[in-house]
């Protein structure tokens, strides 16, 4: 083979590769795309909701909309948006993470939470216990978690939104039941984390550790995640235990104004989040194990799953996210003070 022939063949080969690749990467034709950056346990919820919204949007405007999803630990996802992940909307596990984005990027106002009803949380959840069938260790309330020989599974509050709710629910129970003594409360939290053998970075990681790998006696879990585990692994394997007191977890949503504007998606992004509050969407929310803010259209059997229990709230009982973040989870905060790895 002569040199020029060889070269021609090489060029041809690379060119055809490039063509094949560029043809292959073209996404399915869509009029518009919207990127929703969310946290771990909402995968199933948004899969269902996106279908509902796309149908609604098509009927309303005739446009075909493709909603792209990105999921991960809430704190990690916030970091990615700060680093430039082009989210039109963020639907994260806690307001603190969205505050961070607002502060770092200035892409939307810091009082974003006021822009939608219920502090911009279209659905809520709470923290419950997931235990092995029959509850062999007899775990009924927060106090039982620090009993001898009980292993507790929770993700790391530094990286996981769910884990912070876990921590705060435990804190609220301890404060109420130990006479409001802060030192005793801290001691309880310290004891609790001594019972944690594995600190995963995200809620889904902890769920897998507990349900799939069988580590630990009790999983501190989002209520919705606990129901999901029962559904995926069978109700004959795990029981849900409702503690005497828990926290109202409010996963908020907001439009990242500057990103949506740059992509010409302002109307779409706003509609996407507003539609979450409609009865049709709330029904899907209830079906996916989140507590709806509007129960009018939800199925009775879905609602029946949510037990009534005493719930504290981040704003009323902890003074809001900014303060909570600073006191408990920032570097040098209470969590750093009490947490020492067991090994």
């Amino acid at each position, binding site marked *: 083979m002569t*040199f020029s022939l*060889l070269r021609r063949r090489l060029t041809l080969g*690379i060119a055809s*590769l*490039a063509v*094949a*690749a560029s043809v*292959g*990467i073209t*996404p*399915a034709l869509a009029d518009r795309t919207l*990127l929703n950056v969310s946290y*771990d346990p909402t*995968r*199933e919820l948004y899969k269902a909701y996106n279908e509902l919204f796309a149908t609604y949007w098509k009927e309303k405007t005739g446009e075909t909309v493709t909603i*792209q*999803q*990105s*999921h*991960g630990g809430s704190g990690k996802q916030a970091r*990615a948006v*700060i*680093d*430039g*992940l*082009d989210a039109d909307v963020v639907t994260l596990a806690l307001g603190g993470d969205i505050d961070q984005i607002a502060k*770092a*990027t200035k892409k939307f106002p810091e009082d974003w939470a006021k822009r939608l009803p219920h502090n911009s949380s279209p659905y809520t959840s709470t923290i419950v216990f997931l235990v092995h069938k029959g509850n062999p260790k007899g775990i009924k309330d927060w106090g039982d978690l620090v009993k001898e020989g009980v292993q507790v599974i929770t993700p790391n509050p530094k990286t996981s939104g769910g884990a912070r709710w876990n921590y705060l629910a435990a804190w609220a129970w301890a404060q109420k039941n130990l006479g409001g003594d802060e030192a005793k409360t801290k001691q309880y939290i310290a004891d609790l984390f001594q019972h944690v053998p594995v600190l995963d970075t995200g809620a*889904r*990681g902890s769920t*897998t550790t507990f349900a799939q790998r069988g580590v630990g006696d009790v999983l501190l879990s989002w209520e919705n995640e606990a129901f999901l585990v029962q559904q*995926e*692994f069978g109700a004959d394997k795990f029981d849900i235990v409702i503690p005497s007191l828990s926290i109202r977890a409010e996963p908020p949503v907001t439009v990242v104004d500057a990103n949506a504007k740059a992509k010409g998606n302002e109307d779409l992004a706003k509609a996407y989040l507003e539609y979450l509050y409609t009865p049709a969407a709330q029904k899907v929310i209830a079906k996916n194990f989140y507590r709806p803010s509007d129960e009018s259209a939800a199925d009775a059997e879905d609602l029946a799953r949510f037990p009534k229990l005493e719930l504290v709230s981040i704003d009323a009982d902890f003074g809001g996210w900014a303060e909570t973040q600073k006191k408990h989870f920032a570097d040098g905060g209470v969590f750093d003070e009490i947490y020492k790895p067991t090994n």
Partner: protein
Amino acid sequence: MSDATIQFPSKTGSEIGESFAVKLVLIAIAVAFLAAVLLLPLVVVFMEGFRKGAENFFAAFSDPDTLSAVRLTLLVAAIAVPFNIVFGLAASWAIAKFNFKGKNLLLTLIDLPFSISPVISGLVFILLFSAHGWFGPWLKANNVEIIFATPGIVLATVFVTFPFVARELIPLMQSQGTTEEEAALTLGASGWYTFFYVTLPNIRWALLYGVLLCNARAMGEFGAVSVVSGHIRGLTNTMPLQIEILYNEYNFTAAFAVASLLAGLALVTLVIKSLLEWRYASELAASRRH
């Protein structure tokens, strides 16, 4: 290619002084170890993939997100591998054939992706190209997307796979020296002619092996790609990331089906390598004896 250079001693075990039993035990341990550490996980991957039948196995690939992950992985490999061939050749040529200041530094730099955790490799790109990174504002102003898009994934992959081609070539080129190239040049050959007709044929086996390894790693890279991907479904997830997602969504069959495909691609790579080595065994031996 190093395995083929092992010279099996012609002496039998008894002459060396090992008893037959000792030999048997050693072989048994080696085989058991290989089976447990290498073969078993591979078998498990395929078994899990087919646990719910072939139908479910193939159904995993009808998911558009999974298909897009397969396409993205192939695209990334198709860009990263040729890129690394060119850079690997250039770097190893420079190191093996020339003496210059900073040569040792270059050698160390080439090894950097081997010694550094892929997560850090990814974070470096975040540091450089993210919205608040060094080049972030400029990129944003010029509408260039790198992080959380295909270019970032390609960059991260190129970075972690960089040593594979160069590391295969450098020792070989160093041992072959420069005299054949010098001979070609004195005979009036041009630089390119010398490269294609003298250098390339001498290194083609090492190059091929480096390319195969590089390709396997390019398709399988998780850590660095995970950091720069942004995990947008159907857009910036490669096969390894898609496997993790499927696994985390309790979709074990699909996760292992995609894992089987990835493992299958790796196996095909190895089979190709073995076939080539077998087909060209005599030529290989001839080029080594010299």
